[in-house]
């Protein structure tokens, strides 16, 4: 804060000191425009009435001295010097206007405009930070309760969904330990064994049906026994252990043991 107000109150210094002071301060400048602003202020005139030619001379003088004394000036200071030297020549010899170049007056006006605009912004910046400020000059509520929006979920479920869900659990649990019930079906091996066992006791032709096991719980099991027994007889016939005959289509199947000669 204080720095800023000082910048605007600095122009009380004796003129001789200006360049020397600026030389000391050069690191503190915010670029060539800032330097120009300081030089302009040292003209002690309103920026709207500033002599750009005079300002250009002062700047070029300053740069000259600055380079003599010590400084490797930053490039943009030198660019500005070159630009001002050019501007100066345009202002002094105004008639050499080329088509696509702005006139010396236009260039001078552009520079003056830039200085005025920056000066205005700077003083407004000072005013801005002097405004009353939240948290320093005026305050918000120290301990506000706060406003909240609670979103409360409303759930919906039907009895059907509930029961279905319970059914699912039950089924899932049954499936968890899935036991395959043993089939009570007669295997081929069982049939063979049974046939071999009975074969010695078969005197002559015997219907296969009479050799089937009895007491089936279901017709399914009975049919599997029949199928297995038939397969077993075919197997034994192939081995040459029995004879098979069937007297008519779909008729009974008869077997008889082959006698050892």
């Amino acid at each position, binding site marked *: 804060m204080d720095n800023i107000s000082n910048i605007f109150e600095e122009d009380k210094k004796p003129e001789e000191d200006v360049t020397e002071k600026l030389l000391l301060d050069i690191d503190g400048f915010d670029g060539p425009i800032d330097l120009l602003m300081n030089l302009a202020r040292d003209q002690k005139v309103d920026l709207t009435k500033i002599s750009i030619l005079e300002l250009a001379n002062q700047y070029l003088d300053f740069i000259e001295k600055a380079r003599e004394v010590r400084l490797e000036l930053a490039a943009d200071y030198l660019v500005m010097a070159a630009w001002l030297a050019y501007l100066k020549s345009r202002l002094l010899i105004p008639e050499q206007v080329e088509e696509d170049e702005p006139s010396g007056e236009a260039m001078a006006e552009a520079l003056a405009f830039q200085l005025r605009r920056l000066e205005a912004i700077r003083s407004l910046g000072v005013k801005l930070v002097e405004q009353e400020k939240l948290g320093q000059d005026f305050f918000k509520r120290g301990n506000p309760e706060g406003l909240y929006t609670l979103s409360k979920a409303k*759930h919906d479920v039907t009895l059907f969904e509930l029961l279905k869900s319970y059914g699912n659990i039950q089924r899932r649990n049954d499936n968890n330990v899935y036991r395959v019930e043993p089939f009570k079906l007669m295997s081929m091996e069982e049939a063979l064994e049974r046939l071999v066992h009975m074969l010695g006791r078969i005197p002559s032709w015997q219907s296969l049906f009479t050799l089937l096991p009895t007491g089936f719980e279901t017709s399914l099991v009975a049919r599997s026994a029949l199928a297995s027994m038939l397969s077993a007889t075919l197997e034994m016939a192939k081995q040459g252990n029995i004879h098979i005959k069937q007297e008519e289509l779909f008729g009974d199947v008869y077997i008889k043991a082959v006698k050892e000669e």
Partner: protein
Amino acid sequence: MEADNYREELRLLEALLFASNTPLSIDDLKARVPDDKHDYLPALLKMLQLQYRDKGVNLNKIDDRWAFRTAPDLAYALHVEKEIEKKLSNAAIETLSIIAYHQPVTRAEIENIRGVATGRGTLDILMESEWIKMGRRRQVPGRPVTWITSNHFLDYFGLENLDDLPGVAELQASGLLDTRPAIDTIPETADMFGDDE
């Protein structure tokens, strides 16, 4: 004392109490109020309290400290509740159905039946919807809490009492509970060569 004669003092107290992030005692206020007003502070605070009595913000005395607070009857507007229709998760429906059929049931038992761990949130949701409540603690080591359904549960599902819930056999009959293994579904007949289709 007339409030009009103390407008500036009241303004100052208003601002101080408004801006403070903690309730302020008379001593706190003294540090920021001109010395010649210190004796009036209790009276000024009462005046201010009166001014705000019927407003949306009241000046409350809490112990020996003063603070502005929004009027209690307007609290509803500070905390707006929005109801959002939400589908109940499968986990929640399952849990609810287990509680309905197996109550009183502990969380561990629920997990055992479901075969998966039950998140704390699931029971919370069911409690929030007021379908379940805590029952007695089970008299076993750890004394786990049991869960039972509420009266609201019966109302909600239109049940007279828990016996109205269909039994396992009824569920089975209605196709909701289909537990038969696949091989059992082969039709049976006593006649060996009967037409059993």
